[in-house]
């Protein structure tokens, strides 16, 4: 079955910029729409659904930052990337702080955008490491529904390096029978220092020491059972955004 092509919106008040970019993306097999103003872009977002938006920052009516803030309220999960001639502008920083994935400087590096788009399409693989099979199974079900590829590990002996290497995110229970989650984390971080590892635990008090140590060695965050699935999804979106931003040369500190 052929994969559904991404829908992309290109926004720039310089029509030639919007059109050339849109034409390139079409040649590369994406569905594109163009808007030549901030207002036009807002209308497009209201009426169609987009997987990705590339927008200019300075436009005469509604600028990129205002446009992003406006659509973020109703559609917070569309990744938006700025393209601008003024990369050091104060507005750009405001946009990045508000949640824009990254800023690209004109003239654009098209190959970079194309590799970014191919990443965007790919579903992230998540490994769940938890010795409670019921919890693992239900969580995996929810995440699969949301388009993630999920690998369930209920026996810690089955967690191998290859598995971690091929995934984007690890969900790690802090208490795995006789094994301490902290040691597992140390192991993962030693070989994959940048791997986002989200801790989960039902023992907020008992495990507080280990959790503190885990956060010290750069565990991404800790969620407490029973947790709201929405909270986890938020974190996953955030991680994906960071990953995409880094792909476009943004650095997070």
């Amino acid at each position, binding site marked *: 079955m052929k994969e559904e092509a991404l829908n992309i919106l290109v926004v720039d008040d*310089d029509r030639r910029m919007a059109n*050339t970019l849109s*034409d390139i993306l079409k*040649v*590369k097999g994406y569905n594109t729409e163009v808007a030549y103003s901030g207002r036009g872009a807002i209308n497009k977002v209201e009426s169609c659904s987009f997987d990705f938006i590339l927008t200019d920052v300075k436009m005469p009516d509604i600028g990129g930052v205002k446009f992003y803030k406006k659509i973020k309220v109703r559609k917070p999960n569309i990744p938006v990337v700025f393209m601008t*001639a003024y990369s*050091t502008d104060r507005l750009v920083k405001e946009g990045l702080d508000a949640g824009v994935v990254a800023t690209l400087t*004109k*003239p*654009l590096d098209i190959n970079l955008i194309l590799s970014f788009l191919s990443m965007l399409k790919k579903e992230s693989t998540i490994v769940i490491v938890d010795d409670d099979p019921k919890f693992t199974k239900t969580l995996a079900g929810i995440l699969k529904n949301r388009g993630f590829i999920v690998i369930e590990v209920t026996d810690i002996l089955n967690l191998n390096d290859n598995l971690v290497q091929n995934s984007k995110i690890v969900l790690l229970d802090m208490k795995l029978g006789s094994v301490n989650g902290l040691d597992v984390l140390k192991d993962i971080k030693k070989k994959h220092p940048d791997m986002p590892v989200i801790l989960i635990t039902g023992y907020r008090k008992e495990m507080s020491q280990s959790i503190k140590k885990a956060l010290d060695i750069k565990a991404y965050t800790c969620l407490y059972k029973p947790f709201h699935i929405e909270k986890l999804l938020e974190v996953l979106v955030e991680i994906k955004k960071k990953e995409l931003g880094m792909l476009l040369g943004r650095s997070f500190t």
Partner: protein
Amino acid sequence: MVRKRNIRKQFNQLSSYFKELVTAYEKIDKRKLRYKEFKDLSNMVNKYKQVEEELEKYSKNLKEMVEDRTKKLKEVQEELIRKEKLAVLGQLSGGVGHELRNPLGVISNAAYFLKETLTDADKTTKEYLDIISQEVINAEKIVSSLLDLSRTKPSERTEVAVSELILKILDKKHSPKDIKVTTNIPKDINYIFVDSSQISQVLTNLITNAYQAMADGGSLTINVREHKNKVHIDIIDTGCGIPKKDMEKIFEPLYTTKARGIGLGLSVSKNLVEANNGSIKAESTKGKGSTITVILPTKEAL
């Protein structure tokens, strides 16, 4: 004020005595003087000569002082003009640079599109499309250096290890294969207190210049030493050198000896170094090579 008036009064008195003295001296028939009287007179004349010498010396000093001050004033004025020139240029290039990025963006998109769609185009057409793309990249580099000039970002200073900074740059900017690179960085050098990205830009600039000056190969030596809470970084090349007449102009914006280049590198570098409380100087012998020295403060220097 009172003092000044007093001196004026004393001076007027002195000059009127002196006139009387000269008239009296001319009237005296020296042949009728007795020996002792003659001796006294001669003493007086000697005393007068001494005063004259003193006055002469003083006036010479005064002249030197005036010359010295004038020179310093001229230097300050020149520095001011340089800064002014930079500021105007910065403003202009900031505007122009940004405006150029938009059309460059469209050109580069159009070239990319044509390359993708004209798959059966002949070799020359493809080559020309590549030329367009490559020239857009070159133009963009010029725009970026123009924008560096207009950027007035304040320095964010932290303690930085010089060795790390230099090695990182050398790692990124590979030397051309016929250039030998040597670094002498003592281990006990203190951290410098600077904006690391600004100083990294400066050193990258200077190292690139050095490479370019040695088109036929040579050696680049980077010496680091510390003196009175200041770290000196010498960047020494064995390249073509700078003619003596050009030495005083090399830090001026838009001055260049390169066939391609707009002459902003050293000027921008000087500004960035000074923004970090440092200084930069150059020595060169035509045909033998150049040494650029960047002097940067440690935290103790502040």
